[in-house]
């Protein structure tokens, strides 16, 4: 029997056509998806067939085929479904039903600010989340959720990307992210147990949407100049400064006329460049939804040949089987990364090196900081009886950049397969396998001979050849060194959980139970090196290295970490008015397998009360929604340092080896470190309370949160007593760290007319960090090494983590007489800073150092303004942080003869009475609060103006062009390059941390602006 053909159109309540709606004859394989105008056609149907229409966000609707051949179906919006849904661990939840503090950021927010890492774009967007950015290409921002609770343990939040727990998201293109959910409080994060102490960020990548294939093409190009450059003294100012310094210490004087006047920042810095191009296609039908994207990101840094490139291919597919009873989701991300790394020390050297030094000498050698002591000229050439001195002890930053030849490549494959089976309408079983594999390889070419020759312009190639001939085994006389290191790393997780979601009358119940097995850090690392390869890059293979020197190879397997976990969560609400959530996670970790108890239990509770569901507020015209939340929970930080093996040896040149015998043969020795003791994970417990509100016809929305979180057993690095037997520092639980704070978010948005809508939003976070209950003998951990023997930080009870510990400057010594009659530090001279004798013992020493706050901002805030007028859109984002102190070590750490900023030159002490604030050219390099400055700043993060072309052609459904200025302005009193000092350094993964260089500007990457042009086209 031949059926008939019917057609029709699917619309919403306002008769606007809905493209992509599914139209299916029940119990038959007859099916269509509406086109762009909402049209559908069904062939071979019979009268009496029932047709079901479904579309995301709308209630499904059914109709019966009658004698009519055309149908117009208006779908009703599913208001329930349209409510914001957030992602919680192992599930989803309506935002209005939360009892914990979860902030969601959607894709438009993430992509508005161009960045290689999505977290960089979110600075100032999420209350309670402090993000410290570095503008270095490919850098990872520091993300702290609700304060810093650990001194030495891992500080990064846990990222869960499509169900795969990972420690970073550098491989994920921001353009592929659908949403990021920040699980801020303990009750939300507790489902991730022993790894959730720093908060959890759930990243969900984009999936195909049902309907016709849509293609997007997006691209932007930008220039990245330095934003806040410090102006350095020129040659003539430098000479004055140098001469004043040397006059005071009996050193040499320089001539007023000199050959060179080098601006080192001009020589070292270039304008960076950024480009990002994305292509994606997505769509879906009855059984399959698909999403594919290719993303290319390229950035050139401020230093010559400093590059970061990343290509990402993403393929996400969803298969719906057995009438949607079984859903299989597959996510795959392939990302390749390619970097040329350059030394950040060049920023530091450019600051210090004298302008009298040329980039190159006429003989082609790189300039060095030489001067003729007799003539006072900056030259390395000496006549008879003349000697050569050094202006500074620093090198040539241009040479540093040129000689560092370092490449880093990596490939990362990451993905997951999730099967969700609806056993009944109420019960869903989910099984997920997630994995990540990474291959990385670094190559370093070190031109040893070139460095040797260029470090002293009088050196000759013949001298080098002689030394090489005389010392055939000494690696320092090789022409060059080529080294590779590579690593391979694999991790997987297998999660199984069951979800039961039901309601009895007004009682709503949602139960999740499951387990997870995870293994991370499976892999190996190797490095190999050889010497004397040909200079041409194409021959940089170990094969071409000289046999004069032994090639070296080293390889080691890594010790993996295994986790075994069980978790459960019960969510109950009565009539969406009273809420209760209980969570329990139990984690076992192989890292702590030597402990008697290596299983940890992490409970959490949450309650909520929606006041607007009560009679006294129901139908209130002003207050549309009001909810109170409260929670408590415990979390763990398993990423902590462990005490190492007791007996120490070193196969290379360690201080326990020695030589004996006439041939001085190397004898390997050993020594005992410190007796190892077992440690456990750090435990964080948190109380949190919050309020969500929606007022004035939902135009004003926001939330207010308070928290108090305590790390109960913070691990400290303990230095054994100086006069005790054992030498190596060890770790022990020895303090509490308390973070207390509140978060405030407010947002107003309104649509004045069809042509004009606007929004304005702001958030504010305040956090107070305190170290408490330090165990006896454990106080005093030092940090913040400036590399010149001075330290700047010290751990103490009652102070924040990473607190500054410094002399207090109280003016400038004006005369020798003044020094003689007062307590002064050794070596004090007029023009030096004068330090306060805090303990009044007549001597200035470390006993007079005091605490001066911390680098950790006490507050940060964001401001977002946006409006749309017809086809124009405009947005402005600002970000500020403050209440903290940062240390200008560029200015402080002098050995002698370094250049200074013009402002320092102009404001210096020049003699009795000139100033009692700023030291003279002759000054000491001690760490004092003089160099500690307010870290407060406010920065315009982004200004964007866009124009969307209305229906261009049949093929281009949407097109938008925009211009954007990123970081165009900063308002700060800080005198260095940037008050935002994360300490990120790709060459030193240990550089960051409260007792490392975070908060100290020494070799920090300067702040840059980005001015870019971009377009988006949708087909």
């Amino acid at each position: 029997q031949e059926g008939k053909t019917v057609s029709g159109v699917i619309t919403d309540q306002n008769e606007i056509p809905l493209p992509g709606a599914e139209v299916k004859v029940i119990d038959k394989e007859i099916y269509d998806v509406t086109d762009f105008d909402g049209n559908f056609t069904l062939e071979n149907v019979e009268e009496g067939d029932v047709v079901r229409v479904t579309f995301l966000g709308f209630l499904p609707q059914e109709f019966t085929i009658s004698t009519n051949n055309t149908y117009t179906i208006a779908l009703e919006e599913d208001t329930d479904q349209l409510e914001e849904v957030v992602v919680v661990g192992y599930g989803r939840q309506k935002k209005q039903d939360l009892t914990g503090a979860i902030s969601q950021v959607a894709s438009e927010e993430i992509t508005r600010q161009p960045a290689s890492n999505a977290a960089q774009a979110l600075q100032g967007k999420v209350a309670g989340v402090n993000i410290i950015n570095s503008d270095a290409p490919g850098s990872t921002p520091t993300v702290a959720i609700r304060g810093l609770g650990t001194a030495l343990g891992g500080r990064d939040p846990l990222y869960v990307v499509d169900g795969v727990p990972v420690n970073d998201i550098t491989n994920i293109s921001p353009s592929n992210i659908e949403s990021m959910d920040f699980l801020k409080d303990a009750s939300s994060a507790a489902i991730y147990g022993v790894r959730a102490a720093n908060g959890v960020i759930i990243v969900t990548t984009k999936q195909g949407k049902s309907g016709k294939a849509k293609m997007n093409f997006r691209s932007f190009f930008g220039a990245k100049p330095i934003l806040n450059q410090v102006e350095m003294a020129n040659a003539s100012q430098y000479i004055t400064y140098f001469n004043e310094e040397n006059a005071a210490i009996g050193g040499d004087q320089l001539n007023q006329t000199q050959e060179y006047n080098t601006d080192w920042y001009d020589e070292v810095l270039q304008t960076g460049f950024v480009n990002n191009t994305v292509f994606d296609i997505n769509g879906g039908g009855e059984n399959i939804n698909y999403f594919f994207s290719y993303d290319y990101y390229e950035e050139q840094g401020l230093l010559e040949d400093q590059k970061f490139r990343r290509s990402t291919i993403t393929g996400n597919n969803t298969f719906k089987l057995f009438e949607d009873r079984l859903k299989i989701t597959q996510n795959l991300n392939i990302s390749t990364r390619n970097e040329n790394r350059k030394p950040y020390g060049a920023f530091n050297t450019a600051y210090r090196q004298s302008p009298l030094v040329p980039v190159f000498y006429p003989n082609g050698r790189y300039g060095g900081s030489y001067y003729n002591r007799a003539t006072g000229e900056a030259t390395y050439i000496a006549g008879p009886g003349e000697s050569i001195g050094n202006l500074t002890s620093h090198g040539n930053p241009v040479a540093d950049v040129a000689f560092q030849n370092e490449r880093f490549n990596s490939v990362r494959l990451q993905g997951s397969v999730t099967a969700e089976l609806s056993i009944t309408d109420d019960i869903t079983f989910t099984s997920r396998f997630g994995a990540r594999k990474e291959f990385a390889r670094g190559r370093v070419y070190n031109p040893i001979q070139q460095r040797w020759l260029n470090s002293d312009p009088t050196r000759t190639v013949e001298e080098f050849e002689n030394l090489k001939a005389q010392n055939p085994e000494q690696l320092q006389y090789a022409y060059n060194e080529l080294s590779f290191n590579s690593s391979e790393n694999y991790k997987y997780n297998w999660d199984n959980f069951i979800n039961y979601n039901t309601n009895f009358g007004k009682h709503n119940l949602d139960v999740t139970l499951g387990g997870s097995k995870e293994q991370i850090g499976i892999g190996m690392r190797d490095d190999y090196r050889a010497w004397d390869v040909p200079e041409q890059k194409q021959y940089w293979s170990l094969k071409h290295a000289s046999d004069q020197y032994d090639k070296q190879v080293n390889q080691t397997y890594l010790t993996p970490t295994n986790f075994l976990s069980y978790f459960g969560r019960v969510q109950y609400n009565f009539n969406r008015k009273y809420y209760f959530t209980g969570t329990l996670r139990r984690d076992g970790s192989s890292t702590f397998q030597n402990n008697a108890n290596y299983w940890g239990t992490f409970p959490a509770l949450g309650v909520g009360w929606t006041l607007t569901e009560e009679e006294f507020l129901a139908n209130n015209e002003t207050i549309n929604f009001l909810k109170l939340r409260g929670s408590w929970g415990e979390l763990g930080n398993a990423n902590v340092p462990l005490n190492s093996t007791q007996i120490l040896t070193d196969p290379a040149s360690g201080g326990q080896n020695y030589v004996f015998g006439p041939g001085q043969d190397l004898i390997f020795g050993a020594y005992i470190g410190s007796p190892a003791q077992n440690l456990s994970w750090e435990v964080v417990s948190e109380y949190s309370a919050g309020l969500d509100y929606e007022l004035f016809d939902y135009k004003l929305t926001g939330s207010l949160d308070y928290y108090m979180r305590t790390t109960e057993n913070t691990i400290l690095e303990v230095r054994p007593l100086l006069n005790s037997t054992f030498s190596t520092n060890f770790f022990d639980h020895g303090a509490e760290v308390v973070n207390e704070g509140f978060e405030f978010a407010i947002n107003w948005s309104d649509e004045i007319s069809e042509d004009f809508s606007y929004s304005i939003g702001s958030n504010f976070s305040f956090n107070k960090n305190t170290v408490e209950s330090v165990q006896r003998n454990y106080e005093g951990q030092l940090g913040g090494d400036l590399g010149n023997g001075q330290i700047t930080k010290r751990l103490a009870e009652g102070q924040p983590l990473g607190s500054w510990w410094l002399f207090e400057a109280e003016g400038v010594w004006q005369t020798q007489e003044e020094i003689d009659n007062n307590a002064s530090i050794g070596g004090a001279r007029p023009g030096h800073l004068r330090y306060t004798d805090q303990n009044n013992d007549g001597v200035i020493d470390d006993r007079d150092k005091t605490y001066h706050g911390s680098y950790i901002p006490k507050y940060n805030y964001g401001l977002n303004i946006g409006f749309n007028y017809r086809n124009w859109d405009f947005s402005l984002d600002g970000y500020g942080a403050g209440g903290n102190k940062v240390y200008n070590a560029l200015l402080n750490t002098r050995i002698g003869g370094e250049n200074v900023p013009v402002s320092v030159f102009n404001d210096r002490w020049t003699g009795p009475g000139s100033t009692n604030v700023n030291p003279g050219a002759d000054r000491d390099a001690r760490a004092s609060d003089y160099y500690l400055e307010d870290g407060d700043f406010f920065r315009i993060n982004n200004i964007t103006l866009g124009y969307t072309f209305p229906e261009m052609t049949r093929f281009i459904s949407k097109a938008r062009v925009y211009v954007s200025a990123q970081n165009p302005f900063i308002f700060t009193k800080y005198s260095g390059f940037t008050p935002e000092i994360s300490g990120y350094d790709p060459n030193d993964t240990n550089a960051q941390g409260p007792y490392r260089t975070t908060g100290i500007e020494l070799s920090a990457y300067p702040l840059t602006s980005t001015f870019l042009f971009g377009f988006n086209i949708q087909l």
Partner: protein
Amino acid sequence: SEEFLEVDARENIDAEDRDENFTPDDFVTGIYGMFTEFDYAFAYLGITEIISDNADKGSSPTDTGTDKQLLDDLEFTSTVPSSATMWEHWYKTIGRANYAIAFAQEEGGTNTDRLIAEAKFLRAYTYFFLVRSFGGVTIQGEIEFVNGEAVVDQDVDLSSRNTQEQVYEYIEQDLIDAISVLPAKSEYSAQDLGRATRGAAQGLLAKVHLYQEEWNEAIEQANGVISSGEYSLEPNYEDVWREYSENGVESIFEIQARGEAIAHGVQQYSQTQGARGTSGWGWGFNTPSENLVEAFDAEGDEIRKNATIIFAGETLWDGREVSASVENPLYSEKAYSSASVGDGDGDKNIRVLRYAEILLIKAEAEAQIGNLQAATEALNLVRERVELEPVSGLAQQELIEKIWNERRLELAFEHDRWFDLLRTGQAPEAMAAHGKDFQEKHYLFPIPENQIIQTPDMEQNPGW
């Protein structure tokens, strides 16, 4: 499934899997290794040489070498890093010795007694530094093995100090023990060259007695070394610092150094003291003072002056021309290494104790007890080698002062000058002549402030 959490270590070898691989030898070698660390190439220079009238800080005027300028100017405080560094380094050396001794006693095996004696010598040598620098210091608790675990003597309170006499007693006991066990230099097999010998322990004990003004005991031990027949003077003074005379006839104890990256010497010892600037090879610290040059000239002592000091513009014995335009006019030649000039890992053996000093110890002790003849004979042996007129007919005090001056010239830049100045009471006068303000408190270095922060009950030295 709990087995899933039992993960075998792959990256580092577990302690229990390594224990069986270690012998007492390894831990004794570990003590010797302490003497090759960088601390002995920089902090040590500061508190033994730069601080004295023999040396200046050197380097560029603006480069203070952390605290070297303060030491040079006698303006340091209780937080001065150099002496704090050595304080800790010395205590950790003692800790290694204590562990090695306990481990050897526990494990037994061949050479156990000798190894324990070597460890005691090194421990005594290290306590000798501590007592000379800081006075009565804490004697660290010794170790016992209980059920395979090293347990430090719980009765010792690290926040209290022993008296100077107790420390000296401890040192003497260690050395007496060592003397009774250690072989003489010639009794060692060749591959053990460089280990502590009976002669070294006797020589050191002689010096320990000298510091306590126990003259007869000093003479007795010095005579033991002299009559052993194991040692004599190197015929040419300057040869003492050549590579070929390492562990030679005059050498009683020295720190061994091969000078390759894989087997380092005293790290950067030669480099920190090397000539600085264009065509230079080092940092230029610890430079000879004018005061020292004058002392050589006053004695007409050309041989030792030229063997001790590198003059800018001179051609060295190995043919190296030192540029006239290096930054400082004078550098220490005893730290100069011909083969590995400027290398971080120098091949320079550091001469700790040599026969000439034993003669001078004997001379001084004999002079102190009035045996002027014996004193003069010993002194003249040292002077003859460097072609100086023999002394004769000096009165006791004159002779003693002559011997002190001889020590200065003979042993310049061998890290004894400052302690000699303190021991003999010459410091106030000598430092004044060098233009520095020596005060009573300078007889001892301050106990490092970081130690006092850890153990607040520990008593600070007077005046600090």
